[in-house]
């Protein structure tokens, strides 16, 4: 049993990390009142941007010996952050500045993001001259996946806590920071006010548009890192179109599951990761339909949580009151 957990938990965690990034980013975004349904697309764009950066870095090298892990990580990270930032800016420009409908904009951006990723993914695969339907960025991936020191010498402790790439730890740290900022700082108080009641925040002298832009863009960049983690760490640097799957939607479900609390997101994302791969560990024989049923587990749990939190009806557990609404000061 212990051996089983020792293999299952780390796998659940690496499954959960992209979700954690996505949900931390989306929680920050939603706290500003922006319901960004473009998150799946943004995570996709984050992933492909990193892949593009890494691909061009790797192919610009005169020889494989010239590869620098530090530079590879830096370039890839910057590319990811830039790509997802642009997506966040686009979303804000449409919904905050032009006050377009948030749901429509978000869904359009998801469609766009996935298409964008597949288009450039396909192009890169062509460029690489590989006959396989995927692109392998093994060197960059190795740099991302480097475990913490001591992972192999400390036995079970090492494999449970130290065996992940640095992005996994960054995800946990970011969600703790997000929770702290939201709860304990003035910026967090203002952000919550903007999401709850922008007219009130405005009258209190808070720049509503700036907070919405900042929260959404930072949220998008965090979510983009989730895409990057998926391709560089989880998938070992192998890009193939559509492999990311429905993780983006799961991240949005996770936001509801955690009732808009980033610190709850850490364990919840690992739980979701575990539920996501549960079907591989439950002996179902050859009956594939049963497997498919188990794949529903994360969604079923989310619905149950949604029902419970609705029934309990505590005001603190509800979504931000102006979530999904545009704010226009001089609307009368």
């Amino acid at each position, binding site marked *: 049993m212990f051996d089983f957990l020792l293999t299952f938990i780390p796998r659940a965690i690496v499954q959960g990390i992209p979700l954690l990034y996505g949900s931390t980013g989306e929680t920050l975004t939603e706290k500003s009142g922006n319901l960004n349904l473009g998150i799946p697309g943004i995570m996709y764009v984050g992933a492909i941007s990193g892949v593009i950066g890494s691909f061009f870095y790797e192919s610009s090298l005169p020889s494989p010996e010239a590869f620098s892990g530090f530079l590879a990580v830096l370039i890839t990270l910057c590319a990811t952050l830039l790509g997802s930032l642009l997506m966040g800016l686009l979303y804000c420009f449409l919904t905050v500045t032009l006050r377009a409908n948030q749901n429509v904009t978000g869904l359009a951006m998801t469609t766009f993001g996935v298409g964008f990723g597949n288009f450039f993914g396909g192009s890169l695969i062509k460029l690489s001259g590989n006959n396989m339907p995927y692109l392998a960025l093994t060197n960059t991936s190795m740099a991302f996946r480097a475990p913490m020191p001591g992972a192999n010498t400390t036995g079970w402790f090492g494999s449970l806590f130290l065996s992940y790439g640095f992005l996994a730890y960054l995800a946990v740290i970011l969600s703790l920071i997000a929770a702290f900022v939201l709860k304990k700082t003035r910026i967090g*108080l203002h952000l919550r*006010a903007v999401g*709850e*009641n922008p*007219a009130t925040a*405005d*009258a*209190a*002298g808070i720049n509503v548009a700036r907070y919405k832009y900042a929260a959404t863009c930072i949220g998008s960049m965090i979510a983009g890192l989730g895409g990057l983690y998926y391709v560089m760490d989880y998938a070992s640097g192998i890009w193939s179109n559509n492999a990311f799957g429905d993780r983006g939607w799961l991240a949005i479900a996770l936001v509801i599951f955690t009732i808009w609390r980033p610190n709850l997101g850490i364990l919840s994302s690992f739980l979701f990761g575990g539920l996501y791969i549960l079907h591989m560990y439950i002996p179902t024989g050859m009956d594939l339909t049963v497997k498919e049923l188990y794949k529903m587990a994360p969604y079923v749990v989310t619905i149950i949580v949604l029902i419970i939190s609705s029934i309990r009806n505590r005001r603190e557990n509800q979504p931000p009151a102006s979530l999904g609404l545009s704010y226009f*000061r001089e609307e009368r």
Partner: protein
Amino acid sequence: MNTSVAVEMRNISKRFGTVQANQDVSLDIRRGEILALLGENGSGKTTLMNMLAGIYFPDSGTISVNGEPAVIASPKEAFELGIGMIHQHFKLVDVLSAAENIVLGLEGKLDLKSAVKKIREICDAYGFDVNPSQKIYDMSVSQKQTVEIVKVLYRGADILILDEPTAVLTPQETDKLFAVLRNMRDDGKAIVIITHKLNEVQTLSDKVAVLRGGRYIGTLITKDTNAQEMTDMMVGRAVSLNIDRPDPVDPQLRLEIRDLTVRNEEGLLKLDHVSFDANSGEILGIAGISGAGQKELLEAIYGLQGTEEGTVIFHDPETNKAIDLKYKTPMQIRQLGVSLSFVPEDRLGMGLVGSMDITDNMMLRSYRSGPHGFLNRKAPKSMARWIIRELEISTPGTTTPVRRLSGGNVQKVLVGREIAQTPKVLMMAYPVRGLDINSSYTIYQLMNLQKEKGVAVIFVGEDLDVLMELCDRILVLCAGKVSGMVDGRKADKQKIGMMMTRVGGEQDGE
């Protein structure tokens, strides 16, 4: 007393689209003085003050604060100049505590402990009662208002603007507020109170400035003027301030309510064994603090609200039959031939559809009557024309979306439609809320007309003075219970106020 000029506004103009909200308004606000800003709805009082508070920015004109020219581009800059505004719709975040709301928008490190200490000091200085850690959604309306006032004082405001602060308060709460405002005036603060209630102007203010149609009409010393003069300035022509109250002709029992008990969705008791009669040819007023069960009462009679026990009996004048309306939906009630009309409090939420035009809103009542699946648009259209003509609704035509009309005209459309059903019982919830004097009097006249036609009118109101002038009898509700029934001709305002806060209104050992 030192009455130096705190704010000088000169030739301020502001336009929204095609609407000129303010034009060439010049106004002085002095310290140690309470200035009442009087005007009808849509006269630009709130817009003018919003420009001081940094919510809107004037198109032209100058503002100087303490003798220095000032540009107030945001609420923050208003705070820095010591200007604080308490809006009619409270600007509070429900899920945050009082203290969190009070420090909202300030800079520096978030230190709630020292904030709470400072809040306590302010409360002690002026006599407020606020629990800093209480969440806003747990508070009563008057508590929320107190939080708003503490909020602006916390920011060091010495120029306070209050936008219709008494609209939601009981007489007792109003007295308390006025006492606090006088304290602040004596403390040398400049206070502006926006209102359209003349009695408040007279009891509270030192000076009164009148706006009409976005223009500044003049300033009067309150003690040298009277209600008639102020109204004439406000309306621009002589207006009779008296509300008629014709004696009821041949009142007959129309609606018999017995032991009506209602729980809301959360299972809270909203009506507790309410019993009363409503007679034809009579206006029955219903008074109470907001949330005392008025809404549930009307909705329960109309069939919108499930009832737990009790009976609602309608006595049909034509057949002399008693019809039980309990457990019936509005449609079933209509099919029984019982003609009830209901003007809900939430006009654009429950009464009308804002984005539809006047004709379509008429059809909400008649959409079932067309031939075989097609709609009859002719009858509603002529009804719309009739209402526009009879009630003098100012609208470009029958195809204008209702949302674009002013508050008074929206209400006239709704009331007109309900009256056109020739009801036997007409129920109105806060029919003059947010309306100016002219529109309000039109509505009062309409109620009297219905009364003379033998309709049983039930009128839920918030202005006790109006209730006492208009109604034949007044039912006072207190926390879902009947606190008493008062004769409108002999009613005493203080007594009703006490009844609103305590069943029966007895003062025990105070």
